[in-house]
């Protein structure tokens, strides 16, 4: 069981700022993303909004393997700063 942080439009659509995920070990980032895409609260928004996953506060590739205690977060397109 891992917890995945949610932000911005994802947080709003899911109605919460984190989500618990059940994964078979050994699991990868790609497995986690696939499970999230089937999740009731996120399926609809993830069909529209592209995301990347951060593991321990670094952007991670799909083949990155997950370990007990990793900090996972789902990152939608960023729009920080100003002066678009």
């Amino acid at each position: 069981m891992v917890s995945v942080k949610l932000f911005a439009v994802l947080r709003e659509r899911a109605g919460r700022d984190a989500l618990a995920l059940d994964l078979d070990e050994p699991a990868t980032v790609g497995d986690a993303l696939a499970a999230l895409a089937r999740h009731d609260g996120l399926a609809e928004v993830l069909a529209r909004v592209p995301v990347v996953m951060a593991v321990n506060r670094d952007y991670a590739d799909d083949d990155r393997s997950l370990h007990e205690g990793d900090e996972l977060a789902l990152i939608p397109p960023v729009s920080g700063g100003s002066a678009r």
Partner: protein
Amino acid sequence: MSGGSSQVHVRVTDEPLSLEALSRAVGRPGAGAIVCFEGTTRDVERLEYEAYGEMARERIAAILHSCVERHGLEAAAAEHRVGGVPLGEASVIVAVSAAHRAEAFAGAREAIDAIKAQAPIWKREVEGASGEWVVGSLPTRPEPA
């Protein structure tokens, strides 16, 4: 040029940002040029920023260290505001110092470009009671060191 952490200052805060303080933070006896960038809310009542705070801080610090290294800066600092930022106020300030102005301009430009491309920060345009998330781009990865 040691790349030591005293050359870099980062803060993510819900308080108003101070340009003067950031400029002072990069002042050094060997610095003849300081370039500051402020990103300000324009053409809308207010912007609301949300950050993945711990990761934003780490990413921004890594970006500033890389800019110090690549451009031979004396120091670099960045602060990003979260929460509501009214029209005319700054959501992000970057300040860098260098011996000469060419490096200072190049370093400041690279820093703000990378912060906007890589930092996990989102914004929403708010007019009255309605808000809209600004559609951005998926974050780019930092270049391999």
